[in-house]
């Protein structure tokens, strides 16, 4: 029974990881860009939502309702995503041609990560902050197993959003344009796709996914810190690799698996062991089967 509960807990964590993993995999699959601003945006949404609603007035807390605060958090992330696209991807593509040939966007995104983390630290300090949402501790009991409501929402939302995303990519004109860009940005331009207007969409979608995840994370675990992005980043990247780079359904599965492995490892062996199975598995996959468990989409040119 305990095992079953642990499995449920793992899947719950995995639901949140899945969100971020999808954001990562979308950036890599569409733009050949390992986007390290995603964990930063995850954190920004969570912290902004906390600040506007719960923080003390000197820290920007206006005592807003958490939904409004969350909405503003998402809004801030969207703006940030557009800024990031402009500065890391578009600028460099204009200046250096195929930006994906260089590590530039990656490095630039790392720079942004540092900026956001320290901005948050400067504004709100480095300590973890309690962020209690009304339904944080609400649970549903099904067959003797406890399901946290925020976690459930995260999981369901992740699946729904990815289904929508999938539909968008396969069925709409925007989706076709996105896939054309993923295949070959230059050819896409030649075919009349307005790359410059569409690439920001990818950034915004990834940003929104990260923002949702951040808020759901805060709702599930009740704490936010400027460094909450880091922990999630490593696990989400693991999920992305497991699922195959560029494979958005794979990312969900990968996120779930990572959540599962983490929780099970912690409950069986203790908290310290959890890195080894996750990352050892990952290293193995990268070397032996880089397309992940489920096969990823083809990425750019492979050369960095």
């Amino acid at each position, binding site marked *: 029974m305990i095992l079953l509960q642990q499995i449920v807990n793992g899947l719950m964590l995995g639901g949140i990881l899945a969100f971020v993993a999808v954001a990562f995999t979308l950036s890599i699959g569409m733009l050949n860009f390992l986007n390290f601003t995603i964990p930063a945006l995850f954190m920004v949404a969570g912290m902004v939502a906390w600040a506007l609603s719960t923080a003390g007035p000197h820290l920007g807390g206006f005592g807003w309702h958490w939904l409004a605060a969350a909405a503003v958090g998402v809004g801030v992330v969207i703006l940030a995503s557009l800024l990031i696209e402009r500065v890391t991807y578009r600028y460099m593509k204009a200046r250096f041609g195929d930006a994906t040939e260089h590590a530039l966007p990656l*490095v630039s995104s790392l720079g942004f990560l540092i900026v956001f983390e*320290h901005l948050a630290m400067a504004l709100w300090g480095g300590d973890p902050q309690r962020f209690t949402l009304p339904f944080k501790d609400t649970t549903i009991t099904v067959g003797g197993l406890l399901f946290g409501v925020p976690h459930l929402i995260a999981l369901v939302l992740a699946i729904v959003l990815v289904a929508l995303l999938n539909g968008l990519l396969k069925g709409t004109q925007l989706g076709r344009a996105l896939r054309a860009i993923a295949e070959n940005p230059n050819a896409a331009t030649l075919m009349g796709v307005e790359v410059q207007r569409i690439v920001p969409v990818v950034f915004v979608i990834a940003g929104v996914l990260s923002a949702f995840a951040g808020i759901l994370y805060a709702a599930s675990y009740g704490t936010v810190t400027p460094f909450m992005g880091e922990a999630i980043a490593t696990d989400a990247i693991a999920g992305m690799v497991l699922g195959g780079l560029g494979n958005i359904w794979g990312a969900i599965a990968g996120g779930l698996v990572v959540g599962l492995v983490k929780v099970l490892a912690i409950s069986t062996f203790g908290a310290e062991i959890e890195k080894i199975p996750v990352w*050892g598995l990952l290293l193995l996959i990268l070397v032996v089967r880089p397309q992940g468990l489920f096969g990823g989409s083809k990425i750019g040119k492979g050369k960095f």
Partner: protein
Amino acid sequence: MSGYLSGLLGLLAVNVIVAYSVFVPAAAGLLNLGAAGFVLVGAYTAGGLSSLQGLPLVLAAPAGAAMAGLVAFAVSFPILRTRGIYMVLATFAFAEVVAGVLLNIPALGGAAGLTVMQFAGLDVVVPVALGVVAFVFWLMRTRFGLAVRALHDDESVAHLFGVNLRLTQVAALTIGGAIGGLGGAMLVHQFNFIDVQSTGVLFSIYVLLYVLMGGTQTVWGPLVGALFFTLVPEGLRRLSELDPALKFLEGGRYMVFGVAVVLLMMVRPQGLVTRTMLERLTTRSAEGGAAR
């Protein structure tokens, strides 16, 4: 010398060593997002030997470097089977595995970290750092250094003229790993403490960033990068202490680093020090220009 200044210099020395550990593979075109991995191996090996076995620093530190080099050699084969983004991820995964393993060795302190008694003052750390710098300067002037940089610029033509790609890459990673281990050994004996948490993902990110910021085209780059990373935030902090109105500088001192990275990637992605720049500087002072 004041305690503050000597602490800063010690930190600078360690940062310089770690910078070169990332530089050597980067010069061969291999981006390492897992520098912390080698630093941890070296730090825990040296720290463990000196505190648990009572080994003197002069033996423990090289042991740390050797262990890290060994690990780098072993891990280079699987890592070199990956390319591009996958390789970056593989180095990242490697560092996490190292952290994970170390967390589970109770004799080394586990999550609480390892405390060591022996202290390596400036009289140790600075010469070691200078030694590393001199070594890498010399290394890049040898045929090996030529092979490394040829590989970076054009793999197929390098291969055509006889550069053994795999061997050169493995060597670059191994040497980089050993240097990283040495840096870790210095680190743990400078601060008398090491733990996985503080030398983790963010550490690896910082190192990679300031090495790339300095520039990987020349051997001067990592030095410049380490100087910038160590001194600028400190400088900003001192500045902020001068005037209460400048308080924001303290909170923002690493932000400045982040912004600098973003701007640099936009306007000068090859880093602060480039070969062309070096040539112009040396041609003005020497006759005819030096072949570097």
